């Protein structure tokens, strides 16, 4: 178990992953439907398989591991179980996010900004997507920006997380009119316009799950 030293401004990696897995699984059919329109109809299945793997790995893992190590384990598990585009992308995101934390015993708001910064960099490094290319970057980028701005402005973590989640969701919605320039959807050219990107949509779910990962007991 992670030890939490204060109420409401620390995050549990396990809770985050648990909530994310539940949200992904609940929305799996929808994600697959989105991927059917502009991809190959497997995104819901891919992410479900990956998140189940992550939960199993965390359950089997070292109970005393610090958050960074947990994130690395989660990322490795995604790489090893998902495949497709989303596996290496989210996998590398969490691995690099975890590495950014090093051995720090706790994950607080500032730490999360570092995690998401490293995650976004990893996604862009591997996938070379720019904002506006109709990918998960269009959800992750705005989420990070919103989080950083709210924390910089002194907002409490829960409010900042809510803002980040809204920004990710808004970013996902904003992919609809875009023409895809990366991933499978790019094969469709102009026909990709008018559909919401599945990866951005699942990313918004994962970001939203952070709000349920606040450690409320000390």
């Amino acid at each position, binding site marked *: 178990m992670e030890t939490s030293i204060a109420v409401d401004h620390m995050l549990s990696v396990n809770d985050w992953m648990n909530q994310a897995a539940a949200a992904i*699984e609940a929305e*799996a*059919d929808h994600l*697959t439907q989105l991927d*059917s*329109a502009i*991809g*190959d*109809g*497997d995104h*819901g*299945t*891919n992410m*479900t*398989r990956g998140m189940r793997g992550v939960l199993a790995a965390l359950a089997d893992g070292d109970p005393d591991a610090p958050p960074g190590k947990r994130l690395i384990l989660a990322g490795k598990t995604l*790489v*090893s*179980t*998902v*495949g*497709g*585009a*989303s*596996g*290496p*992308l989210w996998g*590398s995101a969490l691995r690099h996010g975890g590495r950014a934390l090093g051995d720090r015993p706790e994950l607080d708001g500032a730490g999360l900004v570092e995690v998401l910064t490293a995650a976004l960099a990893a996604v862009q490094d*591997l*996938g070379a997507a720019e904002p506006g290319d109709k990918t998960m970057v269009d959800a992750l980028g705005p989420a990070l920006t919103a989080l950083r701005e709210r924390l910089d402005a002194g907002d409490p973590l829960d409010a900042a997380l809510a803002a980040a989640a809204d920004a990710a969701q808004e970013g996902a919605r904003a992919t609809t009119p875009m023409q895809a*320039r*990366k*991933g*499978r959807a*790019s*094969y*469709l*050219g102009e*026909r990709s316009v008018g559909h919401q990107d599945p990866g951005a949509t699942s990313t918004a779910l994962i970001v939203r799950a952070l709000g349920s990962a606040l450690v409320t007991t000390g």
Partner: protein
Amino acid sequence: MATAIQTMRKLLNDPEQAGKEALAGLAAAHGDILRYDAGAQIVVRADAPRKGKVALVSGGGAGHEPLHGGFVGLGMLDAACPGEIFTSPVPDQMLAATKAVDGGAGVVHLVKNYTGDVMNFKLAAEDAADEGIAVESVLIDDDVAVQDSLYTAGRRGVGATVLAEKIAGAAAERGDDVAAVAAIARRVNERARSFGIALSSCTPPSAGKPIFDLPVGEMEVGVGIHGEPGRRREPIGTAHEIADLMVEAVVSDLSPASGAKVLAFVNGLGGTPLLELYLLYGEVERGLRAHGLEPVRRLVGPFITSLEMAGASLTLLELDDDLLSLWDAPVHTAALRWGA
């Protein structure tokens, strides 16, 4: 997520396990050629590793059978890494395959150009390098239906994959070194172009319903092999018109030498039977000759498929003497066999 098999016209047990069960069946049917390592989720040539021979590894999502497992064997692949259906495999598989077949002469990864495949193979090659195995990666991107540009994921890898596996496999068998085998595979990719059309969608077992809706009487023009919609939708044409469209698309992009000897590969997407593929082949040969090209080798059949999708693709490969003799060299796999 659990999908009932009652929603599909498919021979399945658990839809989620379809790919793995098919591999077990492949191995049961072809134990003389290959073995299936269910733990590592890889298909490996029965006599691997072959000492001193460059090893050829490919892989990708399942649902394209016989690609890739059906091409493991003498004169073709040393190992295949099958992902979930339409989902690229994971680096662990590629690493395990690479280690299982490495005969000390290096390993070539044949990678179809899809974001997922490219990224997973990239991570695997990094892992292999960490373990001291030199991997050369060759990207296959022959689908002219997709615009190639710096601002897209680039062209898809489709039919040329089969030809590259055969021809590079023969080069490895003849003793070429790793750079030469990779170079041959790249030459195949450079001299090959493909174009596909679909007359139906297809249904991934775990999804339980077709990826897109295509009314009878229409066709998707410029499809790949993942049940993606194509570049545009048109009223269905005659085989004559479709052949012209395919030939025009590949020839104009490839710009072969006039009078060039070519290999014409008419591929079925899974649900279109041989009757129609041969009918189409006749029209394709007519079209190629009208362009002043000389088909000297042909491959007709479902070799790189999109589950049970109805439709076909044309892959054209401009041959030179070396490519021709490598094509003719012995091969013994589940799906292609001659001279052995």
